[in-house]
C-alpha cells in the first residue's frame, strides 16, 4: 500500500519542528523524518534562543522548555594576541519577564520542541535518513528513505534538512555550496559549578552573559569567536569562512584555532578548570541575501539553513529557521484550503511572504556585508591590533604627555592603513551595515 500524508517534513531542527508543529496544529497529517537517533542529536548551535519566533507558535514555551540562562549582558571584544578592547552592555531591563534571549543547549532544546510536535499530532520518525526525493515528472510527490519499504508520499515536502541541503541539490534545485558562503564553526562545552560561573561573570542565578569576539583569534580569517554562559557549563567556539580555512597560509586547523583561543590571556581565566564534555563542528550559511537559492517549486519548499536563512551579522539563525518553517507550513495550509494544486505557481506565495517578513528584510539590509568583509580582511586583522595598541599606549603611564601619545596613535593608524584607506574602510563599513 502506498503511504500518503498531507505533508512530509525532512529534518527535526528548528525549521522542521516549526513546520511540523504548525501543520499538525492545523489538523493535517504530517510525517516528519529525522536521521539522528533523537531530534537534536545531529545539531549544533551557540546557542542563543530568541524568544519571539518560538513565542509566535508556543506562547507558554517558558513553562517547560529547557532554558539555561536569560541574557542580561552582551560583551563585544576586539582582541589582539594578548589583550582586548571591549564594549559591554548590561541592563536591568533584560531582567524583567518575559525575557527576550536565553542560552540553550541545542540537543536538549530540539528534543523538547519535538515533544511538542508529537503532542500536536505529527508522526515523528527518527534514525531514518531521506536519500532522495521522489519525482513524478516535475512534481515532488514523496521521499525515499534508507529503510525497507522506505518510500512515502505526500502533497507537499518541506525540506528543513539543514545547511548542507543535500536533497535539493541531488534533485537539481540548486548547485553545490560555495566555500565563501559558509562558515565552519567548532565549539566545546565546558562544565563547571554554577557558582563559579556566576562569580566569574558577575551574574546572579539564571542570569547569563554573551561574549562575541573578533580579532587575532581567527588568524587573519573572516570570523568570530564566542563564549556563552549556560547554567552549569560554558560554550566556547570559533567560526571562520570555509574559503579562508581552505586557503589558510598557516594551514590552520579549526581545532588548533579553538585551542589557541582558549589560551588567550583574556579568555583562559574565564574557562579555567572547565571539564570538556563534547566537541562539535557545524557549518553556518553566511552568504546572506544573495546566496538564498530558489526555495519553492512543484510540491516542495525549503526552510531554515537549507535555504541559507541566517543573519550572520546578528548571529540569528534558529529564529529565521523557525519563522521560515512556520511560514512554509502556513503557505501550504492556505493553498490547500483554497483548493489549489501544489505547483510552483501556488507555492511561490512562500518566498513572497518571506519578502514581507523580517527574514528577507534583514537579509536584504545586510546584503553587501559578506562581500565587503571578504575583500577587506583588515577589519579582522589590522584594526583589532591598532585599537588594542592605542588603548595600551593611552593607558600606560610613563611620563609621556597625552598629546604626544595621541599623535603616536593617530600616526600608527595612518601608517597601517593610510588616510584614504581609513576613510574608505569607514565608508565600506557604513555601507555594509546601513
Amino acid at each position, binding site marked *: 500500500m502506498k503511504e500518503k500524508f498531507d505533508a512530509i517534513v525532512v529534518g527535526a531542527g528548528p525549521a522542521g519542528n516549526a513546520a511540523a508543529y504548525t501543520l499538525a496544529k492545523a489538523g493535517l497529517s504530517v510525517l516528519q523524518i529525522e536521521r539522528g537517533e533523537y531530534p537534536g542529536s*545531529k545539531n549544533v548551535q551557540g546557542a542563543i534562543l530568541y524568544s519571539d519566533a518560538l513565542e509566535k507558535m508556543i506562547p507558554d514555551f517558558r513553562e517547560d522548555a529547557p532554558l539555561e540562562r536569560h541574557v542580561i549582558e552582551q560583551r563585544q571584544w576586539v582582541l589582539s594576541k594578548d589583550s582586548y578592547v571591549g564594549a559591554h552592555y548590561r541592563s536591568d531591563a533584560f531582567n524583567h519577564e518575559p525575557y527576550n534571549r536565553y542560552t540553550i*543547549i541545542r540537543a*536538549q532544546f530540539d528534543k523538547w520542541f519535538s515533544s511538542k510536535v508529537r503532542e500536536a499530532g505529527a508522526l515523528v520518525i527518527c534514525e531514518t535518513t531521506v536519500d532522495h526525493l521522489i519525482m513524478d515528472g516535475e512534481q515532488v510527490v514523496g521521499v525515499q528513505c534508507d529503510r525497507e519499504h522506505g518510500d512515502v508520499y505526500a502533497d507537499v515536502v518541506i525540506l528543513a534538512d539543514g545547511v548542507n541541503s543535500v536533497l535539493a541539490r541531488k534533485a537539481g534545485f540548486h548547485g553545490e555550496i560555495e566555500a565563501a558562503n559558509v562558515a*565552519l564553526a567548532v565549539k566545546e562545552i565546558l562544565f563547571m559549578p554554577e557558582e563559579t560561573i556566576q562569580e566569574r561573570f558577575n551574574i546572579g542565578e539564571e542570569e547569563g552573559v554573551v561574549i562575541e569576539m573578533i580579532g587575532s583569534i581567527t*588568524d587573519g580569517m573572516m570570523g568570530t569567536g564566542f563564549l556563552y554562559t549556560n547554567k552549569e557549563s560554558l560554550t566556547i567556539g570559533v567560526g571562520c569562512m570555509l574559503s579562508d580555512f581552505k586557503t589558510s597560509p598557516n594551514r590552520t586547523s579549526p581545532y588548533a584555532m579553538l585551542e589557541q583561543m582558549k589560551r588567550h590571556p583574556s579568555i583562559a581565566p574565564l574557562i579555567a578548570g572547565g571539564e570538556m564534555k563534547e566537541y*562539535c563542528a557545524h*557549518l553556518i550559511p553566511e552568504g546572506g541575501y544573495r546566496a538564498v537559492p530558489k526555495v519553492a517549486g512543484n510540491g516542495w519548499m525549503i526552510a531554515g539553513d537549507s535555504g541559507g536563512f541566517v543573519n550572520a551579522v546578528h548571529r540569528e539563525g534558529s529564529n529565521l529557521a523557525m519563522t521560515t518553517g512556520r511560514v512554509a507550513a502556513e503557505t501550504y495550509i492556505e493553498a490547500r484550503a483554497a483548493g489549489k494544486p501544489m505547483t510552483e505557481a501556488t507555492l511561490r506565495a512562500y518566498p513572497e511572504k518571506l519578502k514581507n517578513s523580517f527574514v528577507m528584510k534583514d537579509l536584504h539590509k545586510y546584503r553587501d556585508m559578506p562581500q565587503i568583509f571578504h575583500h577587506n580582511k583588515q577589519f579582522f*586583522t589590522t584594526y583589532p591590533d591598532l585599537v588594542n595598541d592605542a588603548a595600551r599606549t593611552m593607558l600606560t603611564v610613563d611620563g609621556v604627555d597625552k598629546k604626544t601619545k595621541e599623535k603616536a596613535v593617530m600616526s600608527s593608524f595612518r601608517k597601517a592603513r593610510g588616510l584614504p584607506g581609513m576613510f574608505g574602510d569607514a565608508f565600506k563599513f557604513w555601507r555594509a551595515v546601513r
Partner: protein
Amino acid sequence: MSTATFPIVNVEEKLFQNRYRVDHGRPHIQIKDARICQSQCENKACTFVCPASCYKAEGNGAVTLITDGCLECGSCRIICTEHENVAWEYPRGGHGVLFKFG
C-alpha cells in the same frame, strides 16, 4: 598582523569525549580516486580543514580517510571543488555522531 603560533592539538582527545555509533564497514564518505589526491591535489586542504582530522596526509603524498570521528559538517566535500573527489553522504539513519549537547 599578529600571526599566532598555533599549538599542536591532538584532536583525537577532543573526539574521545563524543559519542558515536559507527556503521562498521560502511563509511559514509569516500575519496573517489586516491590517485587524484596523491598526484594532482597540491594543497590537500582536507587534511587540515576537517575539524575531526579524518583526512591524513601520508608521507608518500597519499591521503587516507577514516570517517569514524566524522562530525558530519560537510566541509571536505565543499572545499574539494577543483577535483570533486569526495563522495559525500550522511550516515545511515541512527548512525554517526550523537551529540548530547550540540
